[in-house]
């Protein structure tokens, strides 16, 4: 009997370790021979821990499973039975390209990985020259999934064309945005995809060394990635002679130290070099003078982890999904006060309303939805009246929003938007790298100003608006520059929460 229990940290956080232990004990007591596979998560976090039992090659789900459910699950007669997992609505409605293997395979089995299409992309890339590899990525239309949406092919071409004795691939796994966990999920659930993507990037631009800058808040992902790198090295996927190609690519996992701003690429590079994570002015571009002053590709985890499927299926196949200039799939992370939270991969273009109300089934509390913050702490609070917005980079921008890393945090009507605006300013003050005054000092003033408004001083509202303008115009990076977005969207769409007590009483 083959049984799957996820080792993803969200599943663990909901009790997967205890369930796995109970399955072992119960199987032994009943004298049932089992093979227990620790997979990644399927992304249906409201069903975690999701136990899957394979029967005649079909995986049947049981969830959310508790220790008390284990005996019935093994007996094949549990009230938590969900039927075949692949037939669940959430699974059927997705287009899983980047996440095709996550939740399906044993994350640390290279043979499982290859049996599910893994390494096909790298084999194909080995048969191409650097320029051909870069051209393929350009044709796919892939844009950076870290937030800015910059075309990945153009970045790679700059590094490819740059001269340098040593070039680098740096993977940005700092994933600091609240409401996002796609990077973590793929690193824990299919780490070889990221390794393969980085190796293809290395072959493409002529870089022989890669680093993953992985946040310290993800101890499970760190363990899985480190182990996967060792396995890949042992199997010759990494090393002096990648899959016998005669070309080298090595990589290392580095751990961050709890600074949100280190997700900004130049701050990240300083941190990787062992300096304070202060943002660098651009130019020079990291593509030309990046890690240790050398040409460097900095890409988000999802950007790099999407490269293998582009090479496996072809650039055109990938580009055929999507909307407008947003090609391929978006890996939505549905979070916060939502009944059904998790990861949902689909072509760009799905509406915010469909995601929140239909996929997410509304709030967890059962109260009405008030707002959704899209794109992390620097993203806008979007009211229900804008739920027709299609999720694409330009499309959301037109609605005053920011897609960012595609995290969605749902709030119910109990949320106090003035307090959320205050938190945005407080977060900016805590995390500012300190380089620009509008960010460093402005954010502190922002907190004070919002406190005045909360105390009923309506005259402070124009001050807040001015302050946001100053921060937007006078900040070097998006931390100071975009903090006004959540603040101003809260103020614009939810003016009642900012009304002075007198006004509210009138």
């Amino acid at each position, binding site marked *: 009997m083959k049984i799957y229990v996820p080792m993803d*940290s*969200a599943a*663990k*956080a*909901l009790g997967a370790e205890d369930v796995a232990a109970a399955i072992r004990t119960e199987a032994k007591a009943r004298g049932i021979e089992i093979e227990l596979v620790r997979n990644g998560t399927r992304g249906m*976090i*409201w069903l*975690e821990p999701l136990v899957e039992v394979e029967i005649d090659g079909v995986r049947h789900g049981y969830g959310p499973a508790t220790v008390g459910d284990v005996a019935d699950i093994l007996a094949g007669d549990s009230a938590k039975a969900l039927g075949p997992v692949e037939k669940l609505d959430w699974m059927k409605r997705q287009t899983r390209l980047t996440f095709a293997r996550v939740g399906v395979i044993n994350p640390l089995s290279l043979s499982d990985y290859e049996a599910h299409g893994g390494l096909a992309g790298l084999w194909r890339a080995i048969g191409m020259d650097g320029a051909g590899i870069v051209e393929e990525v350009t044709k796919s239309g892939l844009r950076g999934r870290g937030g800015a949406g910059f075309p990945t092919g153009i970045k790679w071409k700059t590094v490819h064309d740059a001269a340098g004795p040593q070039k680098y691939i740096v993977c940005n796994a700092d*994933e*600091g*945005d*609240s*409401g*996002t*966990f796609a990077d973590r999920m793929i690193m824990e659930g299919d780490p070889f995809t990221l390794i393969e993507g980085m190796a293809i990037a290395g072959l493409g631009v002529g870089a022989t060394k890669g680093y993953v800058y992985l946040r*310290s*808040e*993800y*101890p*499970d992902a760190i363990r899985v990635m480190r182990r996967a790198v060792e396995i890949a090295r042992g199997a010759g996927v990494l090393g002096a002679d990648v899959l016998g190609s005669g070309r080298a690519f090595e990589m*290392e996992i*580095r*751990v*961050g*130290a*709890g*600074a949100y701003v280190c997700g900004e690429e130049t701050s990240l590079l300083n*941190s*990787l*070099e*062992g*300096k*304070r*994570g*202060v943002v660098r002015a651009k130019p020079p571009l990291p593509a030309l003078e990046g*890690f*240790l002053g050398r040409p460097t590709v900095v890409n988000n985890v999802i950007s790099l982890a999407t490269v293998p499927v582009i090479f496996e299926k072809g650039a055109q196949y990938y580009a055929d999904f999507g909307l407008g200039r947003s090609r391929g799939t978006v890996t939505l*992370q*549905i*979070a*916060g*006060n*939502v009944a059904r*939270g*998790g*990861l949902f991969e689909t072509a760009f273009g799905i509406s915010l309303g469909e995601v929140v109300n239909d996929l997410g089934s509304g709030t*967890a*509390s059962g109260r009405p939805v008030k707002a959704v*913050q899209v794109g992390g*702490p620097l993203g806008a609070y979007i009211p229900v009246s804008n739920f027709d917005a299609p999720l694409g980079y330009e499309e959301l921008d037109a609605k005053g929003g920011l897609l960012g890393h595609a*995290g969605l*945090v*749902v*709030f*119910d009507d109990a949320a106090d938007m003035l307090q*959320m605006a205050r*938190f945005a300013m407080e*977060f900016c003050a*805590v*995390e500012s790298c300190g380089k620009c005054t509008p960010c460093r000092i402005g954010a502190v003033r922002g907190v004070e100003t919002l406190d005045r408004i909360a105390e009923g001083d309506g005259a402070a509202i124009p001050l807040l608006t001015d302050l946001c303008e100053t921060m937007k115009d006078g900040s070097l990076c998006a931390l100071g520059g975009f903090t006004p977005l959540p603040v101003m969207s809260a103020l614009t769409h939810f003016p009642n929460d900012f009304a002075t007590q007198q006004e509210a009483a009138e």
Partner: protein
Amino acid sequence: MNETVPTSEEIDTLLAEYSHLEGPLLPILHAMQDSFGHIPEAAHRPIAEALNISRAELHGVISFYHDFRENPVGRHVLKICRAEACQAVGGTALAEATLAKLGLDWHGTTINGAVTVEPVYCLGLCACAPAAMLDDRVVGRVDNARMDTLLAEAGA
């Protein structure tokens, strides 16, 4: 957490293990903190000398990052998420109740030295919030009862 004062041999061993890396400082600081619970004062001079940086520069780096501590902490570290997704499901109230119960402020340590409570901005558990982490162990959908269990386990 280990709070003994490290010997210079222990410090040199860690330095030798990481000094050859490109950009070795963060890996060294993490290794020191993993071994000693904080970055001990005694390690400052050897690190600065090994990497050929000034002690002021070293201090600048240590103080920049929220993770690095210059003083010993409790035997366990409890991190409670303060970010938006956790706030959306009552994370703020949970954090306040926990601090009040322990009579602590953020970064404070219980009198018996068992637990230090720190804020964290996102653990990537945003679809099963509110979230917390006791040392390296993640916990989701934390309510007051679950928090009490965690605190009891940690000996708070």
